[in-house]
Each structure stands twice: as structure tokens, then as C-alpha cells.
């Protein structure tokens, strides 16, 4: 399956007639040694593992590679903001208020109206967003995968119930429900907000995984596993799950971007992460009053969000191409 050129297997020989006793069942070797050589040359086998094939395909996707690079730098800087940022998040400097972006004093993104360095603030905010987003992606993927796997594998009433539930969740106005939950439940801790977001985002993955399991369960290796006595749990997780990795990974990646956007929207509207925890949406909300004069207050955090999401989307695209090149056009 993962080999580039298949060698004749005993099965092929069986199809063509009975195999020679003592031989591997190849075609009658031509008496001509010249033919022998060319024949073998045509059959040179290069076995490459799945991983190598994937890596090769991904690396050629230049946009994805560049995005990955940029994303790693941003995430690295954001997650270690306390070491990278030139100033503290709340460091007030009334002598330097409302400065436009400049190179002096390392105020790359300028300062806000009480003199706090904006680059640092954006960096800290990004850190929060990144943490929340990855948490959301992880949690929603975990839930979605389990639900989807169970629904797809067992089918019947379990599938029906779960899928009706999923359909139903999709019928409600998404952001509205999120806002209600966040307003009442999500005060303060970013991880609370993250959990709430995750509890609404798992449905897409569940759908996809279910679809995969539905088609996989008809495949022979599942029958073989069952015949050799494997338990359901083992089949679901050790045998079928590895075959669903690619859509799961692609979707998880895109979920990160979605989570960032949702978290930013929540904090912009005032219902998400609350101060003093830094949040990009909140920065934009605070800055919008002065956006006509101090344009960097709104522009910088926004650009950061856009950049991160663009990178993630390109990476997701590259992943999709690399993991499943047989899929129809992106």
C-alpha cells in the first residue's frame, strides 16, 4: 500500500495459474538474460513509509512551510512573552503616552493612552489566544473523535441519538449560545472560556470521524481484527483510529484558527476573558475609541490575529494536500 511499485505477490501468481513448486510463482523467466536485466530494472522497488511520503509532500508546499515558520516564531514569542516582551503588560509610562509605532525605546507597536508599550501588550494577548486556541482544539478534537467513533462504529440507536444531538447543536445560533454560556459561566479564567468554546466546536469533528468510521467498518481489516478476538475498544482505537488521522489533524488545525477568532470576538464584546488577563479582542475593544487617531491600537492586535489565522489556514491546506493527495481539489 505504501510502496511505490508493487512486486508480484503470490496472489498474482495464483490468479495467473498454479505456482511452480518450490518457486515464488513468477512468470517463466525468459531464457534471454538481456530481458532478465531489463525486466528487473523495470521492477525496481522503492518502499517508502507513509510518514516519508507525507513529509515529502508537505515540504514542497512552500506556502505551508513559510507559514509554519512564521507561526512557530509568533507562538514561541507569545508563549514566552514574559521573556521576550521589552516591557511588562501593565507597565505604565505616563511620559510616553499615545506614541505611534517607532523604533525608539523598542515601542514597535507604539503605546496606548497611558503609555503602556503596545508590542508587549499584543504579545501577551497573543499568548493567551494561543493557549486558549490549542486547548480548545485539543479538547474539541478529543470529544469529537470519541463521539464520532462511537456513533460510526456502533451505528444503530447510539448513532441516531448522537447525530440528532449534533444536528441539533448545529441548529442553534452558534455565537449566541456561546455568548450566553460565556456571560453566565465563563467569568475570568481563560480556560473556562476555552472549555465552553470547545463544548460547542466538537460537532464538526464528530461528523467527520463518524463518516470515516462508517466506511472503515466495512473494510476487511476490521473483520480480521474481530475474527482474531480483538475487543471493540481495541478495534476502535488501535485499528481504525490511525486510519482517520488525516481528516482529524486537518480539522484540528482549522479549529485552532476558529477558536482564536471566537475567543477574540468574545473578549471584544466583553463576555470572554476578563482583565487583568490580556486578550487581543479586549485590546481592540479598548482601542476602538481612539482608532481614528491612534490607529495602531486597533490595527496591531487585528493584524496579529489575521497573520496567525492565515498561517494556520495555509498550514491546514498544506496538511490536507500532503496527507491525502487523492482528495479532490481544495
Amino acid at each position, binding site marked *: 500500500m505504501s510502496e511505490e511499485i508493487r512486486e508480484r505477490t503470490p496472489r498474482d501468481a495464483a490468479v495467473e495459474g498454479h505456482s511452480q513448486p518450490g518457486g515464488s510463482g513468477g512468470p517463466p523467466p525468459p531464457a534471454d538474460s538481456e530481458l532478465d536485466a531489463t525486466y528487473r530494472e523495470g521492477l525496481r522497488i522503492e518502499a517508502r513509509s507513509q510518514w516519508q511520503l507525507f513529509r515529502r509532500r508537505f515540504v514542497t508546499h512552500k506556502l505551508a512551510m513559510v507559514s509554519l515558520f512564521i507561526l512557530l516564531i509568533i507562538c514561541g514569542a507569545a508563549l514566552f512573552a514574559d521573556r521576550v516582551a521589552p516591557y511588562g503588560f501593565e507597565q505604565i509610562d505616563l511620559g510616553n503616552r499615545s506614541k505611534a509605532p517607532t523604533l525608539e525605546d523598542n515601542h514597535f507597536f507604539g503605546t496606548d493612552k497611558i503609555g503602556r508599550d503596545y508590542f508587549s501588550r499584543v504579545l501577551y494577548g497573543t499568548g493567551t489566544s494561543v493557549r486558549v486556541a490549542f486547548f480548545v482544539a485539543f479538547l474539541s478534537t478529543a470529544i469529537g473523535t470519541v463521539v464520532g467513533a462511537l456513533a460510526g462504529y456502533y451505528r444503530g440507536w447510539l448513532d441516531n441519538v448522537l447525530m440528532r444531538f449534533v444536528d441539533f447543536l448545529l441548529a*442553534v445560533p452558534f455565537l449566541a449560545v456561546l455568548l*450566553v454560556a460565556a456571560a453566565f459561566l465563563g467569568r475570568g479564567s481563560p480556560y473556562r472560556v476555552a472549555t465552553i468554546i470547545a463544548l460547542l466546536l466538537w460537532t464538526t469533528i464528530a461528523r467527520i470521524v463518524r463518516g470515516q468510521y462508517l466506511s472503515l467498518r466495512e473494510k476487511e481489516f476490521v473483520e480480521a481484527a474481530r475474527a482474531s478476538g480483538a475487543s471493540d475498544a481495541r478495534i476502535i482505537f488501535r485499528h481504525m483510529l490511525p486510519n482517520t488521522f488525516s481528516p482529524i489533524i486537518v480539522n484540528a488545525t482549522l479549529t485552532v484558527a476558529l477558536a482564536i477568532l471566537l475567543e477574540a470576538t468574545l473578549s471584544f464584546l466583553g463576555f470572554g476573558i476578563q482583565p487583568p488577563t490580556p486578550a487581543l479582542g479586549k485590546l*481592540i475593544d479598548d482601542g476602538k475609541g481612539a482608532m481614528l487617531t491612534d490607529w495602531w491600537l486597533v490595527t496591531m492586535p487585528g493584524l496579529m*490575529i489575521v497573520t496567525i489565522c492565515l498561517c494556520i489556514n495555509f498550514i491546514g491546506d498544506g496538511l490536507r494536500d500532503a496527507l491525502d493527495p487523492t482528495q479532490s481539489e481544495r
Partner: protein
Amino acid sequence: MVTFILRRLLFSIPVIVLASVVIFFGVSSVGDPLGELRTRPNVSQVTLDNIVERKALDQPLPAQYLLWVQEATTNRFGTTLLGDRPIWPDLRRALWFTLQLVIAAEVLALIIGIGLGVLSAKRQYSVFDYATTTISFLGYSIPIFWFALILQVIFTNIYRATGTRIFYTAGLSSTNPGTGLEFFIDRLQHLALPIIALAYISLALYSRYMRSSMLEVINADYVRTARAKGLRETLVTRKHAMRNALIPIVTLAALNFGALIGGAIVTEAVFSIPGMGSYFIRALTARDVYPIMAFLMITTIFIIIANLVADILYGYLDPRIRNE
């Protein structure tokens, strides 16, 4: 076909009922309706007791639910928690404005999105295609609220620079909008930016999916057959390719409706449009459960209607599913 529609209609009713149950119990359980009020020092116990009595808050939840349903259907969602203000008049006005916004945005997004998608598919790998792809990717990456703010900045600066208002950056209408055509144009100028902000992301989605759908279809065997019969390329595209390619877009548009409503909430907030979104935010800020529930119920009904329309359209476009 008619039975198909009827069946779908019938099926929606239990969904609406189920939604009402979930909404009610969901909202009631996330917080004490009076929680916010209790924290305010100037609200007296007497006021609180009155509210409890008015809204039967001392009854068990299922009873409250039935009361709520009764209020909702016979008394137009009843009144708010605080201030006992009738919900429906405010909600209805807000609903009307939001509908203008959302429907205009959806139609715009569909027309442009589908158009771009079809053209990108026909000119795959061209500059046009790459440009559209870039627009789509940006669409997935730009937060609506930020895009809305940027639009405001741009057009305010245009006004400041030139003195003419192309589009308004806030509000629904000017103070003296006139009548008839004048009024319509004034409204359009006010709603233009919110519509653009709202439509952009949906547009990106539709054009992407349409492109990919068209590409699948354009290489399909039956398109080849149509060409082999001697049809003009435009006819091939219109009658054979598009009809098949549009099918998944219909479902997508319906599913996207929920996202549109979310987008409307944000857009209305930024552009100060007194629509459902603003109504909802206000209710949410006040933690007033009744308007919140009314909002959720109305929007859910609209989403269900949108899905219904999509199902019917799907059945019309794809005869294969009519018989199931």
C-alpha cells in the same frame, strides 16, 4: 415533491419544541435569573419578591417552562424580568432591521461567491484564481468585528478627506431620512458597510466551496458527454455543470445561517444598528433571561426555516433524494 415538502415541514415541529425545551432549561440553569439583581444595593427585597411572584420563579422548572411557553405563544413572549417591559414590540422592530441586514448579506455573498467560484474553476491556476483564493483565505482569517472597525475607519477618513459620505459608519438612518426612494437610499447607505462586513466571510466560504464543487463537476463524465453531443460551452456550464455543482452549496448556505446570525450580533454592535444583535447584547449585559430566551427562540426558528428551505431546494435540484 409535495409530500417531500410536507414531510420536512412536519419534521420541523418536534425540532422547534425540543429547541424550546433546551433553550428554557439551558438558560434557566446557567444562572439564577435574579442573581444579577441581588447584587445591586438599590434593589429592594420587595421588588425581588414581586418579580418572583410575577414570573412564578418559586415554582419547579417544568412548571415554569409551561408558563413560559404559554406566555410566548399567547402573549408574545411576555415581559422582561426587570421593568416588566413587553418583549415583543422591541423584539419585532429589532428583528425587522436584522432581517434586512442578514438577508441582504446572504444574497450578496451567494451571488458574488458563486460567481467567483464558477469563474475560478473555469480559469483554474490563473491569476484570477489565485487572487480569489487569497481573498478566500483572508476571509477565513479576518475577525468580523475587526473588519467592521477597519471599514469604519476607512470610510470616516474618506468623509473627512472629501466631505462626501459614501457610506455611513454608524446607525440605521439619518435624522431626516425623507420618504420613498430617498429613505431607501439613506437606509442603503447606512446598511452598506454592515452588509459588506457580514457578507465577506460567507462570500469567502461560498466561493471556495463553489470552486471545488465546480472543479469536481467540470471533469465529470456527464459533462464530457454533453460536450460530445455538440453543446456550446456556456450551455454545458449552465445546464449541466452548475446545476450539479450548486447542490452542496445549498446545504452550506443553510448551515451558514447560524454563523450569519452570530456575525450580525457583532456587526450590529460595531455599527450601532438597533437590531436583534444589539437587543441580545443588552439583555445579556443585564442578565435578563426572558428577552435572552425570546431571542434564542426566534433565531432558532429562523435557522430551522433556513434549513427547511435548503432541504426543499435540495430536493428540487437533486431528484435522487426525493423518494427517501
